[in-house]
């Protein structure tokens, strides 16, 4: 351990510098290259050298991986490029002497399927990208390498900064018996906060203000239904977007229920969990507020605020309606301007959207926010001899985000960042983008001043924002530029409003963040179906009291058992 001390202090210093001076000098980029060189020259063998976050191996280390990937979004990327040809891999080989071999590559939508086959046939790669479910399975089978030492020795300052930004909460969640089994990619949980997106041009046209309470929302929505907000003389608009998955990742009713103080779901059939007065966890799904909300939705359905056929629409259909200008209100997260609101803006030049905090019964409502948002975990197969290679590769990826590499690291040179694994993002990425872009915009700069591993992400949004504000559509359409700007940078936009909510404390935490309990796994699908069937029917006009029946069945069919298990988790955690 003593040998580690010098570089530790060295990097601690470097880290402080990078933290203090966001406007860092451009020659700081020399550091990695130098250190890599220094490392090769002084390296005899793996064991004897000082651990270097970006040290080059003397002998090539081959790493097997699997990836689920999407085709590159960027039109500048050379056509027909495959993940094997990703320029990142070439640099990785040059810089660290690590060679990546893909056991298989598959379109992202099929990754899960393909990965479970790989697990079933015990054919796992060296470095694994896991979700929580698969992490748990592999952990149980003892297939994951202990990364404690590798992380300790090799994690670069940037990576450590990220990992410790939540006080080590996420890392602890993925450790067992003091062994770190995965490097968790986590994000700001407030990315899940619900907002209300609304057509501002329609409000203006009908001389209405943005709704702050449920009653006001009802008035606005009714006006959107009845007063022909698009002025085409046809009765072809409805009030609020909704779809058949009542609780989902978008165009759903989470925010609406939250406005009634009801927390029935985290986004799928599973209930959100609240704490009662005695500190016990109670399922939000069966609290009386849910019934109130259902009652209101029922009358809104009757009034035409909800589409008569919402129960057969999926998210694609909701996107169609938003794009076509058939609906002017939708609940959702910060990213809506990025997609699909931008489509509407491009289709209809007069369209203008705004975000407001979700309306509540009196005053603003409180959105549900998870305690932790971590869906991608980097783990290492315990058979792999170089667990530190995984850490080094993460370091490498972060390093490549620096300004020094900007010239080279361009899509047209074949750099496809989202094909490279493992990569960990800055958990505060969106916040960094927000502050940096705004700073640069306020000072009327032509370029951002930030120079660290976040450079690329910030620069992209800055460019789009500049273009949008200047009305420049040579690089991308108005909608696309606006979408980048209004989701991430605008003060009254997606993230801008979300941070206000974060500061004002107008949110409710989901108190259960463990893995699904046994009964949740066994009975989850049935309970989900039960909920969907009865809620949909109630909204469409079945007697409201069927909700009480639902509560009774839910409890009897496993709900009570889940409540017990969830509370057992709580007491174990609080120990």
């Amino acid at each position: 351990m003593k040998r580690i001390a010098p570089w530790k202090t060295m990097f601690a210093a470097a880290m402080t510098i990078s933290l203090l001076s966001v406007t860092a000098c451009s020659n700081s980029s020399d550091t990695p290259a130098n250190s890599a060189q220094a490392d090769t020259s002084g390296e005899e063998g793996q064991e004897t050298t000082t651990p270097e976050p970006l040290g080059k191996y003397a002998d090539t280390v081959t790493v097997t991986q699997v990836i689920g990937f999407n085709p590159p979004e960027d039109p500048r990327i050379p056509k027909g490029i495959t993940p094997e040809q990703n320029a990142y891999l070439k640099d990785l080989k040059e810089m660290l002497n690590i060679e990546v071999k893909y056991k298989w590559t598959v379109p992202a939508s099929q990754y899960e399927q393909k990965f479970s086959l790989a697990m079933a046939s015990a054919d796992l790669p060296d470095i694994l990208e896991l979700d929580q479910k698969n992490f748990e399975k592999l952990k149980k089978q003892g297939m994951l390498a202990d990364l404690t030492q590798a992380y300790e020795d090799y994690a670069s300052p940037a990576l450590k900064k990220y990992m410790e930004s939540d006080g080590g909460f996420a890392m602890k969640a993925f450790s067992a018996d003091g062994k770190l089994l995965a490097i968790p990619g986590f994000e700001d949980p407030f990315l899940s906060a619900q907002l209300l997106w609304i057509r501002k041009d329609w409000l203006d046209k009908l001389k209405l203000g943005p709704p702050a309470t449920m009653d006001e929302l009802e008035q606005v929505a009714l006006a959107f239904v009845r007063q022909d907000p698009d002025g085409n003389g046809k009765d072809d608009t409805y009030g609020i977007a909704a779809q058949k998955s009542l609780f989902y990742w978008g165009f759903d009713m989470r925010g609406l229920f939250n406005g009634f103080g009801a927390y029935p779901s985290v986004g799928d059939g599973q209930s959100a969990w609240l704490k009662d007065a005695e500190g016990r966890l109670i399922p939000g799904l069966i609290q009386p507020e849910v019934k109130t909300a259902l009652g209101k939705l029922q009358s809104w359905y009757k009034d035409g605020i909800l589409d008569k056929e919402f129960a057969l629409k999926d998210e694609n259909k909701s996107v169609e309606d938003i794009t076509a200008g058939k609906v002017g209100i939708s609940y959702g997260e910060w990213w809506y301007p990025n997609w699909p609101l931008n489509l509407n803006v491009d289709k209809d030049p007069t369209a203008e959207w705004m975000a407001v905090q979700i309306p509540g019964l009196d005053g603003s409502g409180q959105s549900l926010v998870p305690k932790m948002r971590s869906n991608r975990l980097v783990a290492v197969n315990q058979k792999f001899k170089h667990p530190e290679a995984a850490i080094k590769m993460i370091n490498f990826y972060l390093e490549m985000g620096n300004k020094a590499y900007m010239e080279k690291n361009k899509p047209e040179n074949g750099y496809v960042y989202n094909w490279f694994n493992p990569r960990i993002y800055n958990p505060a990425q969106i916040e960094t983008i927000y502050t940096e872009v705004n700073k640069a915009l306020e000072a009327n700069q032509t370029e951002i001043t930030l120079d660290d591993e976040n450079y690329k992400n910030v620069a992209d949004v800055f460019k789009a924002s500049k273009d949008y504000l200047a009305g420049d559509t040579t690089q991308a359409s108005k909608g696309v530029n606006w979408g980048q700007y209004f989701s991430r940078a605008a003060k009254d936009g997606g993230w801008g409003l979300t941070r206000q909510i974060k500061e004002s404390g107008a949110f409710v935490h989901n108190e259960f963040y463990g893995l699904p309990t046994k009964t949740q796994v066994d009975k989850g699908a049935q309970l989900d179906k039960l909920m969907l069937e009865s809620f949909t029917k109630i909204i469409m006009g079945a007697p409201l009291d069927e909700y009480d029946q639902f509560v009774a069945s839910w409890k009897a069919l496993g709900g009570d058992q889940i409540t017990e298990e969830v509370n057992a988790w709580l007491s174990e955690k609080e120990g």
Partner: protein
Amino acid sequence: MKTFRREYPLHLMLLPGVVVTLIYAYGPMAGLVMAFQQFEPLAGFFRSSFIGFDNFTYVFALPDFERVVWNTVIISIAKMLLFLLVPLILALLLNEVTKRWFSRLIQSAIFLPFFLSWTVLGGVIIELFSLSGPVNGLAEAMGLDPVMFMLDNSWFRGIIIGTDVWKGMGYNMIVMLAAITGINATLYEAAQVDGASRWKQMLHITLPGMAPIVILLGVLSLGGILSAGFEQILILYNPTVYEGGDVIDTFVYRLGMFSQQYGPAAAVGLFKSVISVALVAGTYYAAYKYNGYRIF
């Protein structure tokens, strides 16, 4: 020995097929043990623990399982009958078309929807039957009240059955057309000499000539009695029509969504297979016993 010498080349001819089938069809059947296991993918078949019939009792005891089986049987029987009747009628009608180009055009057009996946067709069908869609437009023009077809339990099954028949009828129709072309042409010539009408010819030559194929298609489709069209229903259904449209396969699919429940899924698969084989074998031997006819 003499019979062996005579039959030996026949065995030899079957050899390649038998080998391929043994490897790729019988080999994986070892996986049926999953139905009796608490299957853990990482542990594999050898280290997963055996739990007897627990997977079966788990599935059969699920609430609504009865309703789901019932829906499956109703939908698949209706599909089965229509998949025989509609193509049969179409094939007979096509046989009456004398203009060759017209006949070819129709055959191609009927076969067309077969090439599109349900993922592609789903949106089109939902649109077709929506409140603002053409079907309701037609109903309104005739003075009827608009109907939310896809949200109505009394309509939904009909739409599932109808659209599936529409999509797949070309397949059986082609088999039947091929059967018609296989009928001995001299029979028709003789009938014409006797002065039999087209109707009589159809009744006494064409239909009997097609009978073996129609029976074959019918018996084999019995094997699908517990499969009512997974992908189609998954794409078209929604919570309001679970009551009439939820089938075994969609039900099991939802079970698996929360965690890969391999055991119960394998149990359902095995259950379906046993029922299928029982039905098909039953009809096969009944036909042999009472008619001396081997269906295949």
